[in-house]
């Protein structure tokens, strides 16, 4: 067995995760943020590794 199998397995798992996500939490284009945060006038609120609850 070569890495072809495991690489394809990885991509299949990723596709399954996205499929699961889209069946439970579909995208909504009407909630799209500005294309760039820079110059948007909106405060950054997204989750990040370094963020700690206050």
């Amino acid at each position, binding site marked *: *067995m*070569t*890495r*072809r*199998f*495991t*690489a*394809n*397995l*990885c*991509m299949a798992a*990723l596709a399954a*995760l*996205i499929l*699961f*996500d*889209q069946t*439970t*939490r*579909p*995208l909504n*284009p009407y*909630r*799209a*943020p*500005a*294309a*760039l*945060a*820079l*110059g*948007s*006038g*909106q*405060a*950054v*609120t*997204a*989750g*990040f*590794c*370094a*963020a*700690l*609850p206050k």
Partner: protein
Amino acid sequence: MTDAILTEIPAKGPAKGEALRRLPLVLAALLAVSALSLFGGLRYGLLLAVGIGFGIILEGLRFGFAGPWRRMIRERDPGGVLAQLLAIALVALAAFPLIASHPGELAGAAAPIGYAMVGGAFVFGMAMQVLLGCGSGTLVNAGTGNPVSLLALPFFAIGSFFGAYATVWWTGLGALPVIVLSGTSGLILTLIGLALLGGVFLLLAAPGTRRIPARMVWAALALAALAIANLVISGQPWGIVYGLGLWVAQIAVSSGGSLAGSAYWSMPGNAEQVTQSLLTDITSLTSIGMIGGAFLVAAWRKNGFAQKIPHLPARAWASVIVFGFLLGYSSRLSFGCNVGAFFSGVSTGSLHGWVWFIAAFAGAFVGVRLRPLLGLEARA
């Protein structure tokens, strides 16, 4: 003439075949970015493209974190580590003025230094050497079919979820206020710090290794450009582990679980993100893109998937599960991995990024020695 024609035909044949084989890969990547831009929003499509770019550069130019640290420890070859410092310095040159001139819109990777943060970084450094895959490395390696990284990845995500779940408790054991270097003086201090660190590595280097290979200089330049793009598009620096924990949180909630017991996952921003598509989460998008970009490079190469799956002893596979979990758990206690804490923390002025590096590098010494004992490589 006839000879020339005869030799030309076979040469063109495989080239055409290669092009036909590669075309669907490029089209699939373009289609994914376009579809996400259309159905989710341009910002998300751009972030997926940035993530694919990260994966292409990291795999295509073989730029990493765990491998260069290992080469510095075992062979005193600092080339890869110096390339990391170069990339961080380049990002800092852009990130410091951008964050200073756009407060609120853009934010750095600021986090406090604390007992759990230092301990977490030490464990992360150890785990990344045992697995030979850091935060970015595990994703990229999984995308290329590396079975160790592929098995570690789900446990990395589970560990990230549980680490985040308990991070408030761990941080409560003792932490300093968040200390951030900012403005021109902060940038100068950061660049001096990076130069001094590079100088230490050069002093320790073995003769004949005191240089950055050209390939890694190009990779550092490209990574810096992508990291700056990540900051401009998303408003926050390049990160990885938040998204992995979020995937598990979403699966847990969809399966009927409750996150009410966690101060972290109950935080308004995180609780809201758990209900939203992971394709609207910044770190998830770049991580998915990295896996896809690495797959693309491996598939592009003629024999990119030819390597056979190794026959490792059972204790090696058990170690992959345990250290995969530790990789995720420790990265949340230390406020990021080699990317979120070290690369992005230092390049946006957070002092915790510097402390993270020292603690993780110390842990890497232990990890390098543990790896053969766990059956993950031939013992010397």
